[in-house]
């Protein structure tokens, strides 16, 4: 075997092009005759469409066409878009029209599309389209929206309840009745966004000679996109190719199939010209899906020692105007709540509310950060009330490693019983505490306080279902050139998919990593695919890469043994060469083997031999694999301004075996940054008419280089027994417990004033407001 790639800090194969301006993002493609599109969007959160007069826009020089819903073919102009993850608990299964018909239900909803010589001219034309709106009452705040007399988000619906369901197990009421203590928290978490640096983008082009429709899209899910397009455009799958080239960040919102992704291809077919639409940042703030909007009222029952007897409560989830991705976020949130703790009884009543805001769909973490925040706030409350150390309360309640596999008692969103496959939660917390010198913190805090500084420490634990099925495929093919073509339905928005899959194929096939030519995110390269979400690609595609690489290796061994006239167990495969171990070590290169494997016209194959060196594997995981970890954060809070500085950020992370520590560390660090944004900065604000107010990067604040410290990361490796690599997902764990740990640390820093926080983002103004209410400034002798 050559150098083993699995587990090595292999520097990324993606980087050279991206560092020299050679990346290929959707907007980098320029096709002959290409026109540019811009959408006319609703300025209202809720309105009836009376009429659309586009005549002035059509008359503007440089404008080629303006399309409304009625101008599109009925399949795409008349029908609502398909829902991705249906669920029987969904009462109002509403998705939007590609271009609005009769009613618009959020600001930014697509009403018409303009096609022009340039984006500049298309934007000029938008101002000339006269849309007559009859403004309707709107549902802005989800807590108001669920009241009986609330304005309805959709005029055709009787109320704003998209779904209600209960998740739980055990006798919750009995647990609470017999508990020594019961504590209750009201928790709210506001909307934020994925905010990839690259906005959404679509190019569509129909080749009249082959009738092949090619769509380039900045998407996490090209194969799902192709299926959607086949439905909406009434075309065969084979006549559509969707390419996700280099994609500039995903984080969830790019996993959705959007109206624009259907309209642009439809228009390209109507006009017989390639059409490009690049979402601008304002559109992204209005129309790319968002997340986190949840209100929790939860109670915890504990015994006198702080051991949990039960958890119960209510969760109100704002799904926005539509449910394109079903109700999986509140579902995941409800299933994530128990986390790493033994909770004998649990019950959560979930209400999903419709409002006149853009839909919420998964954003990095997908419901889990909210659940972890709720659970960890309860744990901190127990510690405070029972005067126990917060770390100790958690140690008393952890599921122990010897209890693995541990059945929580719930059904996860993959429809399978929620069973934690492996993990060592006490070890992760102990390691994180050791790294931050938790024992020495009290002294640090006291010393800082003597200098007028306020330090705090906070802990966040989580368990995350990752690696969701159904599958992700990998094809490995040895080319006549000797290169190894690898194709996968997995996609790459920065995760280093090419690098990690190349590592696995190199190890399991026995080729040089530089011989691999990888195609990701192209439906033409592999027939079936799912895409990037739910931290699933390492588990699914990684395992398929192992299987496909191994299968082709077997083919190589067979062929080489046959040609060299030795037995199969004599053959070694490494560095893209098959070598016989004995004699004078005769060998065949992959190039020679690939050519031999094609056969010769008129000659028969050896018995059992099949043409080509090629295999496609689709690994199908039996259920989710559960990664876990502990974050511990040390903050310095300025009580006078409410400013929070993160001094020290520790992550003890367990995502099973690690393919590439360089990349996993990068995923964690990036995830933490997103979590810091959620905890302290990012707040998508709307007014009482559901008008978005934070639609620039100067108003919606994502973390800068001065807001994110470099984390110290420890890896606990509890291999998953559920896949051949023993890996678990790592893309979201950095985000999930961040807010919980940070808010706890802020509260701890200000503990002498007795202030409590149960919201994110926790902005400086709220910190100051709480301190003022608590009389902190009198205690501190005034403002300074």
């Amino acid at each position, binding site marked *: 075997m050559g150098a083993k790639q699995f587990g090595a800090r292999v520097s990324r194969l993606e980087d050279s092009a991206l560092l020299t301006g050679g990346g290929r993002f959707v907007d980098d493609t320029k096709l002959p005759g290409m026109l540019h599109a811009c959408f006319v969007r609703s300025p209202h959160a809720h309105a009836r469409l009376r009429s659309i007069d586009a005549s002035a826009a059509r008359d503007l020089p440089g404008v080629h066409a303006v399309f409304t819903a009625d101008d599109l073919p009925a399949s795409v102009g008349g029908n609502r878009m398909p829902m991705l993850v249906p669920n029987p608990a969904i009462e109002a299964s509403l998705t939007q029209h590609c271009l609005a018909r009769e009613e618009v239900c959020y600001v930014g909803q697509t009403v018409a599309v303009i096609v022009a010589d340039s984006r500049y001219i298309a*934007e000029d034309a938008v101002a000339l389209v006269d849309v007559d709106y009859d403004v309707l009452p709107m549902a802005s705040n989800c807590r108001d929206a669920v009241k009986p007399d609330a304005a309805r988000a959709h005029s055709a619906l009787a109320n704003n309840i998209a779904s209600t369901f209960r998740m739980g197990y055990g006798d919750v009421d009995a647990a609470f009745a017999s508990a020594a203590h019961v504590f209750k928290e009201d928790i709210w978490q506001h909307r934020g966004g994925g905010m990839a640096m690259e906005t959404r983008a679509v190019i569509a082009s129909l080749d009249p000679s082959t009738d092949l429709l090619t769509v380039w899209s900045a998407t996490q899910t090209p194969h799902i996109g192709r299926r959607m397009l086949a439905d909406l455009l009434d075309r065969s799958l084979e006549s559509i190719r969707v390419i996700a080239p280099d994609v500039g960040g995903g984080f969830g919102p790019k996993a959705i199939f959007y109206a624009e992704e259907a309209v642009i291809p439809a228009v390209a077919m109507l006009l017989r010209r390639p059409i490009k639409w690049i979402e601008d940042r304002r559109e992204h703030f209005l129309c790319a899906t968002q997340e986190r909007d949840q209100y929790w009222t939860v109670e915890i029952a504990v015994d006198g020692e702080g051991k949990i007897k039960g958890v119960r409560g209510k969760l109100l989830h704002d799904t926005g105007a539509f449910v394109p991705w079903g109700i999986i976020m509140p579902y995941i949130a409800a299933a994530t709540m128990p986390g790493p703790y033994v909770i004998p009884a649990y019950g959560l009543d979930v209400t999903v509310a419709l409002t006149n805001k853009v839909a919420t769909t998964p954003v990095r973490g997908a419901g889990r950060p909210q659940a972890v925040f709720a659970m960890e706030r309860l744990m901190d409350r127990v510690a405070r009330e029972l005067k126990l150390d917060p770390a100790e309360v958690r140690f008393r309640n952890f599921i122990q490693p010897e209890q693995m596999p541990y059945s929580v008692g719930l059904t996860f969103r993959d429809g399978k019983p929620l069973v934690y496959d492996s993990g060592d939660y006490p070890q992760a917390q102990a390691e994180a505490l050791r790294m931050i010198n938790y024992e020495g913190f009290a002294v640090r805090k006291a010393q800082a306080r003597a200098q007028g500084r306020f330090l705090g420490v906070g802990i966040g634990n989580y368990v995350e279902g990752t690696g969701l099925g159904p599958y992700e495929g990998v094809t490995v093919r040895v080319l006549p050139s000797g290169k190894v073509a690898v194709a996968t339905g997995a996609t790459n928005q920065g995760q280093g998919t090419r690098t990690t899959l190349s590592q696995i194929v190199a190890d399991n096939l026995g080729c040089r990593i530089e011989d691999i030519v990888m195609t990701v995110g192209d439906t033409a390269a592999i027939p079936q695919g799912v895409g990037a979400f739910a931290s699933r690609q390492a588990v699914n595609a990684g395992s398929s890469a192992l299987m496909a690489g191994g299968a082709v290796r077997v083919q190589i061994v067979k062929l080489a043994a046959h040609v060299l006239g030795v037995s199969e167990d004599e053959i070694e495969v490494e560095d893209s060469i098959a070598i016989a171990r004995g004699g004078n070590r005769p060998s065949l290169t992959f190039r020679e083997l690939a050519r031999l494997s094609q056969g010769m016209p008129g000659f028969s194959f050896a018995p059992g031999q099949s043409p080509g060196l090629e295999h496609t594997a689709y690994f199908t995981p039996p259920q989710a694999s559960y990664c876990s970890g502990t974050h511990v954060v040390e903050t310095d809070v300025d009580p006078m*301004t409410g400013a929070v500085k993160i001094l020290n950020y520790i992550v003890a992370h367990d995502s099973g075996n690690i393919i590439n520590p360089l990349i996993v560390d990068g995923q964690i660090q990036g995830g933490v940054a997103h979590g810091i944004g959620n905890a302290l900065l990012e707040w998508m604000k709307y007014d009482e008419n559901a008008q978005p107010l934070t639609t620039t990067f100067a*108003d919606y*604040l994502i973390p*800068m280089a*001065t807001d994110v410290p470099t984390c110290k990361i420890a890896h606990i490796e509890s291999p998953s027994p559920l896949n051949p690599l023993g890996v678990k997902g790592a893309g979201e764990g950095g985000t999930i417990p961040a807010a919980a740990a940070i808010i706890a640390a802020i509260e701890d820093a200000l503990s002498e004033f007795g202030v409590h926080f149960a919201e994110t983002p926790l902005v400086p103004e709220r910190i100051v407001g709480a301190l003022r209410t608590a009389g902190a400034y009198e205690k501190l002798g005034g*403002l*300074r």
Partner: protein
Amino acid sequence: MKPAPFDYHAPQTLEEATALLATLENAKVLAGGQSLVPMMNFRYVIVDHLVDLAKVKSLAGISVADGRMRIGAMTRQREIEFSPEVARHCPLLLKAIKNVGHRQTRNRGTIGGSLAHADPAAEMPTVCAAHDAVIEITGHAGTRKVPFNEFGIGFMTTAVEPNEIVTAIELPLWPQGHGYGFQEFARRHGDFAVAGAAVLVDCDKGGIVRRASVTLCGVGNTPLRLPAAEAALTGQRLDDAAIGAAVNAVKSIEPTSDIHATPEYRSHLAQVLLARALRDAAGRCGKLD
């Protein structure tokens, strides 16, 4: 987010520039473009003509004479940041300018542009208010000098008429060794301040304040001088009592609110930041940097 159509003019001289502005309809002056162009890209600002001053070389430069610093309107923020004159004579400006946007925007942004844009939270107008700056404004009819307290007249609104150009800023200098303090609170590095305070003090050898200038930014529609705070400091030693008295003057102000902060929080911050700026100034007063 592409700007609406306009025509572009690049006059070589101030005379050409003012002549253009006198004749063109719906024209706007382009300086560094770091505030104007975003608003054009959002189409909040739609103009028929842009008159770019970049080629009017006479408008750039920093000079000191007769106790005043003169900064040409087209002087880039970066040049101010690295100017030895500014460091020597006007340390408040140096301290403040590091908070203006980011290095990448300071390379292009100009002091004249900052003043003409007149964002209520911006640092440059705040320093001008603190220094009792005189703004030189030139139109086709001639040049006039406007004291800063008559320059900023509202939210992003100045005394500059549509056919006029800000051509220079004159800052009356304070004696060498004066105390100064600049404190602002922004959510992130380089963001517009939620609130801020700029302070100048001149103390005698015994540490008694002879003269004080106190300015807040972010709390009103323009930078606010606080005469009551200045009065409370003058003739006093810069101790906690005097600082407390000056800070008390903030309480009579009713700050603005927007999506980023309530009036209560802005008032609170203004008090904290003023106290801190005054302590900074106290520590520096009488020391020659």
